[in-house]
């Protein structure tokens, strides 16, 4: 393949649906009760990659995701939607990584996939909203970064022109390769799964998934090597362990406080016309409105 695109994607707890069932007595969230989803902006990133692939001959898309064993679901989902393959970075030693340590691990995985032309990621993950991992990975790989991308204006083997979404407008920028792109939620939505690909890759699995299912994977993999989703550990990445996990994370949590709500003496009203009338009158009389 002559043009390689690497998409960084993350599986996240669905913070948008923290219903009452997911709340514990002490007011914290029971993560286990939250569904794990494809981080929304990473789906926008995948779509952008697919559009670039559609307009460049011989382009391929590889997904890189870091997370627990079950995060392989993200890779399978991407393959169903058109990605060519993916790699799961998984190791207990990554636990406790902040954005700096995470970007170090991701950058090593991307290095392993050289040569590449583009690295594309969602702007931010909904469980943190930090938007730091994209730029940090770009810096580690010494790539220019085009953040908040909304659309591809033009693309060929030499360069790409993109539209960026800023706070107060847009910017059209052009860069040569290799480069890193982060994608904004205003970018086109990701295309759905492709039925043919679903049939072909239905059984794509990591080693651990096959073990869980008690399948004899040697035979299956020999027959259909494309069904293998490789797992990479710290050793595979040749990583400096000091730069991973807690030791590689300069940010430390000093403490976590439960927020005690400063209860105001609130006035409780029903939605009867007379009570709302009295409230509106009071707001007018005290010059809060009007």
């Amino acid at each position, binding site marked *: 393949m002559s043009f390689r695109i690497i998409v960084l994607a993350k599986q996240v707890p669905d913070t948008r649906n923290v219903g009452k069932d997911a709340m514990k007595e002490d007011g914290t969230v029971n993560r286990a009760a939250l569904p794990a989803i494809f981080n929304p902006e990473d789906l926008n990133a995948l779509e952008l990659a697919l559009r670039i692939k559609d307009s460049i001959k011989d382009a391929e898309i590889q997904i890189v995701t870091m997370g627990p064993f079950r995060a392989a679901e993200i890779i399978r989902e991407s393959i169903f939607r058109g990605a060519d393959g993916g790699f799961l970075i998984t190791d207990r030693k990554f636990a406790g990584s902040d954005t700096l340590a995470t970007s170090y691990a991701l950058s090593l995985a991307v290095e392993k996939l050289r040569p590449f032309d583009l690295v594309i990621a969602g702007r931010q993950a909904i469980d943190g909203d930090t938007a730091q991992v994209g*730029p*940090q990975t770009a810096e580690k790989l010494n790539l220019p970064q085009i953040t908040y991308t909304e659309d591809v204006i033009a693309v060929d083997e030499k360069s790409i022109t993109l539209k960026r979404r800023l706070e107060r407008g847009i910017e*059209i920028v052009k860069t040569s390769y290799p480069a890193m792109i982060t994608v904004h939620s205003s970018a086109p939505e990701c295309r759905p799964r492709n039925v043919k690909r679903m049939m072909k890759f239905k059984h794509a699995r990591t080693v651990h998934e096959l073990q869980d299912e008690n399948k004899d994977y040697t035979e299956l993999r020999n027959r259909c090597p494309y069904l293998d989703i490789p797992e990479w550990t710290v050793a595979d990445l040749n990583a400096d362990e000091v730069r991973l996990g807690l030791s590689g994370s300069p940010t*430390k949590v000093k403490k976590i406080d439960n927020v005690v709500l400063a209860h105001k003496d609130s006035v409780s009203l029903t939605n009867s016309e007379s009570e709302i009338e009295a*409230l509106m009158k009071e707001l007018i009389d005290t010059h809060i409105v009007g």
Partner: protein
Amino acid sequence: MKNIIVYCEITEEQHVADVSLELLSKGRKLADDIQAKLEAVVIGSDLQHIEKEIYPFGIDTIYLFDDARLFPYRTLPHASIVINLFREITPEIALFGATSVGRDLAPRIASALRCGLTADCTSLEIGSYEDKDKTFDQLLYQIRPAFGGNIIATIVNPETRPQMATVREGVMKKEVFNADYQGQVKKMNLENYLGKDDFQVEILERQIEPQKVNIKGSQIIVAGGYGVGSKENFKLLQELAEVLGGEVGATRAAVDAGFIEHERQIGQTGVTVRPKLYIACGISGAVQHRAGMDQSAKIISINNDVEAPINAIADYVIVGDVMDVVPKMIKMYKKHAK
């Protein structure tokens, strides 16, 4: 002497951005707490007299990089400048606005310097930290809501420098320190700070609009949450806002559901507001949302759940359906408005 530095963002109108002025105000206080100098790095084009705008915030040193190629903002040249400058002057603390520029730039710098960065802090303080047998004094407490319910995390960077944080516009107060304060400007030689290929990314076109939505400046905000139910229903909130002379705001859940545009999101990762009146419609009151509105003078909550957490910080709680209550409010306001 220790130093605290603020990256001063330059607006389209060639002024220092409000968020940077807010950070300078906070930076001055932190600097006094740890007996440090307050410094600023200003990067742009045609910046004569820019120092006059910011001296009153109590700045001791301004590092000025003025070159036609430095505006509009591009990641690589700005990053090279800040990285090399920080290597030279080794700041204790570095603050950035959590804007599209600051959120693009700060992580790149933190990565190059291998230091810690905390996004979207809602409060910054100075304090100590103990780790095993070591005690670290005068660290920056980077305080922000954390994912996982009603919790706030205090984050520190004990070992690495600078201690970096981003803060949204409106979170800190803009306060002049001393109208006659005078520091010094250091005009920097750009060529000593740039890297090679820093101008690889070309800007072909820009379309910058005047600010459309200004909920930050509004004295009355009618905010809607996921409980409003639909884009269609949001129109009713718009109507109430118009009648009262206010603006419509929203929660992230309402924005994610597509009920309303992102510019109107209030909270930790949206806008911070302090209006005279905040009407929360169908909002549960997650800590990330409250971070952006709990300093409103009067809060009315309309919620069909008596136990919604937002009710605890409301002055008035109307128990009922948003679609039922809001029309009555409009009607009664019209009836009594003078």
